[in-house]
């Protein structure tokens, strides 16, 4: 696997004795869980932001408060709630999701959704009403108007997705609780992410290893940021 070779080469530069495939499997789990959760959160958040931002309904202020409160919700508590939900006695117990990537995606979804929704909502609300009027006057349906709003708010929404991804990939507490920081007998990560691995290595006194994993985590976040910013700029010449 090419990806694995690149990682091994990079690690060889630091002369650190990692088991083969260990680091790349951790990166894979981190990215898989965070990206899946952020993708689901985005699919959920943008329609919610549009409805809350563009329509009036009773209880709108309450919904906004819930979203804002969610932004500051402690991740360990989210982890705990998801753990209870997927545990054997929990309502989702029969799905046997405990200590799996799916359970981690669930808790990351809960964590990433409030910031993505709140920032998207701010971006959507910031689109000038005259632009919406224009879209409607030019023959747009309500759906067309919503599409125009999403396009006008695209930079804000990209920021929202980044914020959600940032929260997901750098989060320790809930993935530790619901995922369990597990590797297989072969040393390949099952539910071990970069953050939980760093936490473990640091606790065991493996500071060099922890530092390298930390550098990998920072590099990942920067790369995803760069890709999203680059993508968001496409097709716009100012």
């Amino acid at each position, binding site marked *: 696997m090419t990806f694995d070779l690149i990682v091994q080469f990079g690690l060889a530069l630091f002369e650190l004795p990692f088991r083969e495939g260990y680091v790349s499997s951790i990166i894979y789990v981190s990215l898989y869980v965070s990206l899946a959760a952020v993708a689901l959160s985005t699919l959920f958040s943008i329609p919610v932001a549009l409805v809350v931002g563009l329509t009036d309904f009773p209880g709108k202020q309450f919904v906004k408060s819930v979203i804002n409160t969610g932004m500051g919700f402690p991740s360990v508590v989210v982890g705990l709630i998801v753990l209870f939900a997927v545990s054997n006695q929990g309502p989702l117990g029969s799905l046997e999701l405990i200590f799996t990537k799916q359970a981690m995606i669930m808790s990351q979804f809960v964590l990433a959704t409030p910031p993505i929704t709140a920032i998207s909502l701010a971006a959507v609300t910031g689109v000038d009403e005259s*632009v919406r009027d224009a*879209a*409607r*006057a*030019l*023959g747009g349906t309500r759906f067309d108007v919503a599409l125009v709003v999403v396009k006008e708010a695209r930079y804000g929404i990209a920021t929202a997705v980044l914020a959600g991804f940032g929260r997901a990939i750098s989060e320790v507490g809930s993935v530790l609780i619901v995922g369990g920081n597990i590797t297989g007998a072969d040393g390949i990560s099952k539910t071990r992410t970069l953050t939980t691995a760093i936490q473990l290595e640091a606790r065991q006194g493996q500071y060099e290893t922890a530092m390298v994993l930390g550098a990998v985590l920072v590099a990942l976040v920067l790369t995803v940021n760069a890709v999203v910013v680059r993508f968001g700029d496409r097709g716009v010449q100012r």
Partner: protein
Amino acid sequence: MLRASEVTKAYGTDPVFDGLSIDVDAGEVVAVIGPSGVGKTTLLGLLALSEEPDEGTVTLDGTNVWDADETKRLSLRRRVGMVFQEASLFDASVGRNVEYGLRVRRPWSDRLRNGVASLLGANSTTDAVRESLDVVGLADALDQHAGSLSGGEAQRVSFARALAYRPDVLLLDEPTSDLDPRNTAVIESAIDAARDRGIGVVVATHDMHQARRVADRVAVLLDHGITEMAPTEVVFEDPSDERTRQFINGELVY
């Protein structure tokens, strides 16, 4: 063609119109003049079929707009174009802006295909887009970003955007109030071009000279209704209504 009859409209307890009637035919320009705050924008909202009257009817080619179901009303609404006082262009190229009205009228299968094609860099500019940009003298601006235009150019693009999908009726809300004389002249000649294409144009303006220059008929909006609606010369030279005469002569102070 487009006709509002005996329309009453109020915001809360504030009456805006009480028994107002106005109409526009194909290939004519009707100017709506009146003091600021008299409800010109609300009147255009009624004619744009986006504001429902409290009482009275709005008909397009005899079809009662507010009796029709939503699908029918959308198709009626799509025969009316609107240019606002502010250009309100989308954050996209001039070409994409002008194309917008055409785009939303296409079936979804076409729109998705064109969307993918344009992401891949294909050029989908239609003749209608080029022609309407030509009318406002901005054919060269097709690939420019809307944000790079001057205020006057932006307003001209906004006009072209409403013209591109060939509406039967074109509504203009103070289209030149923020513009310099040169851009005003371009818009006024574009109004003539729209009339020549058989479009019925309604232009709300507080500039009586402009009304005189562009309009075939003038409707005077005063005190919750049209006090006079007649050929331009009649309204300005020999108005039959006393309030109209006072307003034209600047004697009516608001």
